[in-house]
């Protein structure tokens, strides 16, 4: 082989796997990623999959980053091209000096020719047909066999793969055996036919100790379990479905009586999202912690009831795992396009607390926080995750639980308190913080009131009186001001120059941080604020005031976070420069660096 050899690069490159969906490639690819993680090397996996069950192209991108960067770099160094339908574009994506692996069972396609890329063929289908029975098994094992080849090519420790397989198939030893056989096939073939290891390879580090690989939906579900949520109502929708699946799995283990099988939870699969949110309000009205996971289209359907929850002051927790809109959009692609929808959801004057997790670790923490806020503030609270956070495996610090924590049930009057009272006024602002006292059904006759979405006064009675109506609406404004003091504050990094800074939200975090370190190496030091909740706290206003220009990085077309900042702070709109990424794939650092470089250059010239 006289191909150009890439320079040696250890623990810092990108592997992309091009597959056909429905062939079991996802589990093979996550096996590969986890083995790198267990070698102590920081790694992140992004799954780009179609809205389809079987037969369409799907890609899995694994980035190894010895420096711990978690966003996409924009490059591909090793491509495993298992889908002939996408050969052309898969090859085109490989960086010069990179490697492409393909199935050479059939003659090499005319498409697979590029001088600056090393192309390695191995007869995966032929090998698997000779060694395994059954059509399905042969297809599955082809994926496992290329993992075996990569283990040899990248110098991954074979024992780690063995351990992972025996853990995964602990109850099915025969499957573990078959998988290991496929690994060995690929491994042996690579050792025999290719120069192993490649200049791009893995070497043991100790940078993943104390960390886990977890997806945001599982972490959020774990938050619901730990927060004591007992009622979940939902309608299946990508990409939020795995949140309720995970909640059920956790509850089956930790909320089910081993002897009787009795469940200390109730999950209702609703007939639609309108019903799901109605059930959540009903359960919260009754005093249980209840939630619903959904995505943009679901929130659109829920909006009438969400406005009800705001006005009648009923707690609710809504996880919106955002996907690409508008309308049905691209259900399996990611975006941050529901920021304004969540903040002002429903007709009439409504505003809702919104939490913005940046990674699975924050999904866990903010899930717990959301229940506390919903009950403290007696209002629906959004947790605005997205498909990238929700469905991809992220490396993050191990989740921890403080046993001293107790849930904040808010201002709820019990039997004894009601017994001593002359009267109970549901919407009376006794404490001056805009938050009234509530009672739960079934506790005491004196606590009874009529929860309604129609006009009501401070006593909780129906009204069409202008002054009484305004009294309640103005108190809700005061309550929202209280919310700004209770929601998680922003995270600020750096003490850079005053002429420019960066502000961002949610899953942009990794890309922004990497971009800042790249820019910093070029001598451009910028401060960075990541907002973590709406309403914005006073720190957000101060940060905007401190800087002449603020780049607002977000993943939607219309600069929704920027719009919200303009509407809800006193910032001069001209100061806020939008940096937008909205193609449906997770934002990479290249996009942020490019936009800021360009803007700084023109800004300097101006």
């Amino acid at each position, binding site marked *: 082989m006289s191909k150009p050899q890439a320079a040696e690069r250890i623990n810092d490159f990108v592997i992309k796997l091009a597959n056909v969906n429905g062939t079991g490639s996802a589990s093979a690819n996550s096996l590969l990623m986890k083995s790198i993680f267990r070698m102590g090397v920081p790694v992140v996996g992004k799954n780009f999959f179609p809205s389809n069950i079987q037969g369409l192209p799907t890609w899995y991108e694994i980035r190894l980053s010895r420096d711990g960067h978690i966003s996409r770099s924009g490059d591909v160094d090793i491509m495993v091209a298992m889908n002939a339908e996408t050969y052309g574009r898969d090859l085109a994506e490989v960086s010069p000096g990179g490697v492409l692996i393909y199935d050479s069972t059939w003659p090499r396609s005319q498409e697979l020719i590029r001088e600056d890329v090393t192309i390695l063929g191995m007869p995966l289908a032929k090998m698997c047909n000779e060694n395994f029975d059954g059509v399905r098994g042969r297809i599955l094992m082809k994926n496992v066999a290329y993992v075996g080849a990569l283990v040899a090519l990248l110098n991954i420790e074979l024992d780690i793969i063995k351990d992972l397989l025996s853990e995964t198939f602990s109850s099915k030893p025969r499957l573990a055996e078959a998988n290991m056989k496929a690994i060995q096939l690929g491994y042996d073939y690579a050792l025999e036919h290719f120069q192993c290891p490649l200049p791009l390879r893995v070497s043991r580090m100790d940078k993943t100790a104390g960390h886990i690989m977890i997806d945001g939906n599982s972490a959020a579900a774990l938050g619901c379990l730990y927060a004591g949520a007992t009622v979940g109502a939902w309608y299946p929708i990508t990409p939020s479905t795995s949140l309720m699946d995970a909640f059920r799995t956790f509850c089956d283990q930790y909320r089910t009586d081993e002897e009787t099988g009795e469940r200390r939870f109730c999950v209702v699969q609703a007939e639609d999202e309108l019903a799901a949110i109605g059930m959540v309000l009903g359960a919260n009205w009754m005093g249980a912690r209840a939630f619903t996971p959904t995505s943009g289209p679901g929130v659109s359907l829920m909006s009438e009831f969400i406005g009800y929850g705001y006005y009648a002051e009923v707690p609710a927790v809504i996880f919106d795992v955002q996907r690409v809109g508008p309308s049905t959009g691209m259900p399996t692609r990611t975006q941050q396009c529901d920021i304004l929808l969540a903040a002002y959801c429903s007709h009439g004057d409504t505003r809702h607390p919104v939490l913005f997790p940046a990674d699975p670790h924050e999904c866990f923490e903010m899930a717990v926080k959301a229940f506390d806020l919903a009950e403290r503030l007696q209002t629906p609270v959004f947790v605005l995750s997205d498909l990238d956070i929700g469905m991809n495996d992220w490396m993050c610090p191990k*989740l921890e*639980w403080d046993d001293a924590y107790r849930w904040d049930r808010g201002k709820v009057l019990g039997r004894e308190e009601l017994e001593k009272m002359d009267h109970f006024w549901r919407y009376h602002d006794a404490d001056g913080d805009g938050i009234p006292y509530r009672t739960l059904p079934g506790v005491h006759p004196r606590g009874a009131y009529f929860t309604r979405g*129609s006009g009501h006064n401070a006593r909780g009675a129906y009204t069409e009186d202008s002054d009484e109506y305004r009294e309640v609406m103005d108190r809700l404004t005061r309550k929202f001001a209280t919310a700004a003091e209770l929601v998680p504050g922003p995270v600020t990094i750096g003490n850079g120059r005053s002429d420019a800074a960066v502000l961002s939200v949610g899953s942009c975090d990794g890309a922004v941080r990497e971009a800042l370190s790249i820019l910093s190496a070029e001598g451009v030091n910028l401060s960075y604020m990541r907002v973590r909740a709406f309403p914005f706290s006073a720190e957000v206003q101060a940060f905007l005031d401190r800087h002449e220009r603020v780049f607002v990085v977000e993943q939607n077309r219309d600069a929704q976070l920027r719009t919200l900042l303009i509407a809800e702070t006193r910032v001069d709109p001209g100061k806020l420069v939008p940096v937008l990424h909205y193609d449906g794939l997770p934002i990479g650092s290249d996009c942020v660096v490019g936009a800021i470089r360009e803007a700084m250059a023109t800004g300097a010239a101006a």
Partner: protein
Amino acid sequence: MSYMRKPKIVHPGLKKNALGLTRRDYEGAMSTLCAGCGHDSITAGIIQACFELSVEPHRVAKVSGIGCSSKTPAYFLSASHGFNAVHGRMPAVATGANAANPDLYYIGVSGDGDSLSIGLGQFCHAMRRNLDMLYIIENNGVYGLTKGQFSASADVGTKAKKGETNEQPPIDPVLTALALGSTFVARSFSGDKEQLVPLIKAGLKHKGFALIDVLSPCVTFNDHEDSTKSYAFTRQHYHPALEADFVQPADEIMADYDAGAAIEIDLHDGSRIMLRKTAPDYDAQNRGLAFAYIKDKLRLGEYLTGLLFVDEDGRDMHAVNQTVSQPLNSLDWDAVCPGSSAMPGILSRYS
């Protein structure tokens, strides 16, 4: 229309129930519906049933949607919590509330627009889940608050007050309930308290979804000559198939039933329903036969009334879910939070 609140004076001679409460303790705010509205009679029926059953008012949760009927929970049981939801979505609220606390009595009041048009899906799915609640449809065939449009229960050929004729077939809540597996299906008439009150009692005590479709004429928009939901037409065309008596656990069966003509149905709390057949060939415990019989009568323009179907063996939502018997809204912190000790085990699959 009432225009003056009755003074709350409890006459010393007023009859008291087992809790020492009078009928007036089960009343609510003054009704704002039109004078003569059938709905007010149903409200009175609910008050009487709860009083006679000695239900603790604060152990009742009242739920409704939007419409004239959905306003009525404000007019009974003022010591009960109420939830006036958005249009057609009361079943969802009831489902969530019941999921959190099944120990209360749930009374849902809805209308034909609320349940058969905008909320048809939720109505169906509440029955499918066999949600443990009493669900009353105050059925008048017309939208009152928006001034007289036909609803989905309007009969073919019935005329609106302004003269328009309805040509679309109605959705019949009783047939719908039978088809979807509701475990308690009744029809009654707001003008027949003798029949209605025992049905409300039995429906409250039934374990599972209890539907009572109550024909309840709208005096303002649908009580004219060519209407099939008027007082006069309803009186003429409704036929009791079964008279139901409700017997509390402590009570003796006093009525004299002819042998073979009465069916005794045991309820979960020890009370009983005594069904007296007025149509000898009717079987209220056979879903298929009941459906066919009611449909045949409807074709002839007759509304069969009474407790038309009952099945006390259906499993409600919690039985299917295997929910713990203690209401979820009262579980202690330790019963719901696995604590830090569980965390390593949970995280092992993510490392």
